[in-house]
């Protein structure tokens, strides 16, 4: 019984939250509520997928929020023609999206390079870009807000094919792909092996450095994508605020989802559930008018409880 509770701890927490809301939160059982929650949780999930892979190798990535800011700052500069003149808006948007995600990926690669080549501990290696990255985004925009109305770009945050928000589709695809890759591919197996025992993996012929480079780069790409989603919804990009505090949200989602922070064991679906739990906590507290200060305390309690529940099936 207890084992069951533990294994499905996050699911149970989620169900309890839903039940609570059905009973106490006005207007909860509506499609729009689902919509609001899903769109709000998207960016965290997208970032947390990359984070899960990094954590699975025994690392951590503090720079994701700053990388979101960089990609979010870069994209409008390109499609609005601040950097170079744009001819065709579709082309400009395509270039903007690809370039800014790639730049974030390159910064991620830089993290991976520090970690694998110089053996700098991941927290510190990514702390560098955590500090400097947002500064870079602010420097390139001079700290200014960029506002835009470019539907060709904003579909990523606003479009609703078949009534489902585009970013929710992107999130679902990403989650499915990552979950599949983690358990069904050589790459995924290698990630877990590196996190589980790096020396043994090296001796078993796994290219440890390349795996590490790859996961940090992927984390960067995910952050870059998330940055675009955020600015698209808001029709504006503010390098000071895009992705602020995202690293802690993403890590919390990963941990609540049941992934070990020490590496070697990971679950993408768990991460999705973890993010949903945190999102629903936030929604519940807001919708029921719990003041910000008290909400912090409650949120802390729920995170600790959910992770504690997860922990119980380990002897």
């Amino acid at each position, binding site marked *: 019984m207890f084992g069951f509770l533990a294994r499905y701890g996050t699911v149970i927490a989620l169900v309890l939250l839903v039940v609570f809301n059905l009973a106490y939160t006005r207007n909860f059982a509506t499609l729009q509520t689902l919509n609001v929650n899903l769109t709000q949780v998207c960016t965290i999930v997208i970032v947390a997928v990359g984070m899960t892979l990094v954590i699975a190798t025994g690392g951590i990535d503090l720079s994701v929020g700053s990388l979101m800011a960089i990609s979010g700052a870069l994209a409008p500069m390109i499609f609005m023609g601040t950097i170079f003149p744009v001819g065709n808006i579709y082309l400009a948007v395509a270039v903007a999206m690809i370039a800014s995600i790639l730049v974030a990926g390159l910064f991620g690669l830089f993290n991976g390079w520090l970690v694998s080549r110089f053996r700098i501990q991941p927290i510190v290696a990514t702390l560098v870009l955590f500090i400097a990255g947002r500064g870079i985004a602010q420097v390139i925009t001079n700290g200014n807000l960029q506002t835009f109305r470019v539907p060709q770009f904003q579909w990523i945050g606003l479009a609703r094919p078949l009534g489902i928000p585009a970013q929710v589709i992107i999130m679902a695809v990403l989650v499915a792909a990552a979950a599949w890759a983690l358990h069904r591919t050589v790459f995924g197996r290698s990630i877990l092996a590196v996190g589980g*025992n790096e020396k043994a993996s090296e001796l078993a012929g796994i290219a440890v450095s390349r795996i590490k480079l790859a996961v940090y780069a992927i984390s960067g790409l995910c952050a870059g994508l998330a940055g675009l989603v955020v600015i698209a919804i808001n029709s504006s990009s503010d390098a000071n605020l895009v992705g602020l505090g995202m690293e802690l949200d993403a890590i919390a989602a990963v941990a609540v989802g049941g992934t070990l922070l020490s590496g070697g064991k990971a679950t993408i679906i768990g991460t999705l559930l973890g993010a949903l739990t945190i999102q629903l906590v936030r929604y519940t507290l807001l919708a029921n008018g719990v003041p910000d200060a008290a909400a912090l305390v409650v949120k802390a309690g729920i995170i600790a409880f959910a992770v504690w529940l997860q922990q119980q099936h380990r002897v």
Partner: protein
Amino acid sequence: MTAQPDQAALLLDMRDIQKRFAGIPALADASLQVLPGEIHALIGQNGAGKSTLIKVLTGYYRRDAGQVLFERKPFEVGSPHQAQVSGISTIYQEINLVPLRSVTENICLGREKRRRGLLDWSAMHAEAERLLSRFSIGIDVRRPLSDFNTATQQMVAIARAIGFSARLVIMDEPTSSLDEREVSVLFSVIRQLKADGVSVLFVSHKLDELYEVCDRVTIMRDGRTVRSAAMSDIGKLELVAAMLGRDVAAVEGHATAFGERDRSRIGDVLFTAEGLAAGQLVRDVSFDLRRGEIAGFAGLLGAGRTETARLVFGADRRSAGEMTMEGASYHPARAADAIAAGMGFCTEDRKAEGIVPEMTVAENITLALLPKISRNGILNEARQKEIVERFIRELDIKCSGPNQKVRELSGGNQQKVLLARWLAMNPKLLILDEPTRGIDVGAKAEIQRIIRKLADDGLGVLMISSELEEVMEGADRIFVLREGVRVAELEGQAADEEDVLAAMAHGGAAKEAA
């Protein structure tokens, strides 16, 4: 069963101990009685529950049922710390020390010397040196433990354990990484302990050792105590039979493992190494290996055998030397290159460099095989299942199934998983560093038979073992290393033990050295 020792005189009395992990019993009904001042052997197959019984005793695990009396008082400890304070000092199976800290700290942590309330470092260094000198080891105790090899670390662990003035010292396979010289030093220390009235609980798969030092023996099988007797009352075959749960007659077949070799099956040259060198540890090693041949490396602690193997496998960078593999020149920059060339390397330190503890048995076995069980980077589950099940069967790995975590297996079974990893890749050349470390006699024979069979099928094997006997029996040729230099090459099964020993110690044959 033999007559039970006098109840009142017992130092330790464990009865009806039960311990389950996730519902699966590791200890079903285990009992253990140790007398004051005796050396007591605890034996059993891999996974029989010896280590678990010890960890239950020292409070690392909480028992599910049963009672423990120590010095006739109920013994309820919640942590290894309490056990230590109560007079039980333990060396666990995997070396459990802190590699980053100095030797002194590893020896003295937990019973620090103080002066005016603060630690007295010079006294502690002196204490560490004094304890190690009992094992004729003179090292710089200020250096981090990780600077030293497995054997030295094992000696440090032993020194630590006997440094506590305990009434019971538990040693879980202390000799598995020691060579004979060190083992004999250890035995003299154990006898000294006995003379001082200290009891020793000794776990080992090397039966000869047991007969050499132990007074009594407790035999476990499948989590139960099946027999307890005075060492002198029980013959070797009988012992093995009780351990394996078979008749004496069935066991007799196990006696010789490698068996006579048909030398005609040895083929052409597979691998050569010329003048290998790296740092201080490997200075000049040349050897060659033929298809179907088993070559052994003999040498003392720190002779450079492991280091040489690592160079061959590309795990470390060499500073000089040429190698060829199958006639082509071979320059491994990393382990992946060696694997691509058809080599496998089963390392001596299974905890640090071998198993991935959080992964399943299946995932561990196929770790070096990923390119072969996948297409376009996508794993073929069916293929994986087939391979894994075959090796679990062939090596008789005791686990609840391919999906059990390796961390939950007993030491010996973890070793088998590692062997399976390398056998599964179907290598041309297999380097085995201490392949049967910690493996019970039954399984050991099985593994040796497998090695032999593979060699007969054309596999070249490079075997490193601290058990001279294993090298002498198994190897077709023996290369003796001493201080990083290959000092002798001897014919395997024809070699004279004296010659090998002399080469190991002095670098020449017995006659010359004498």
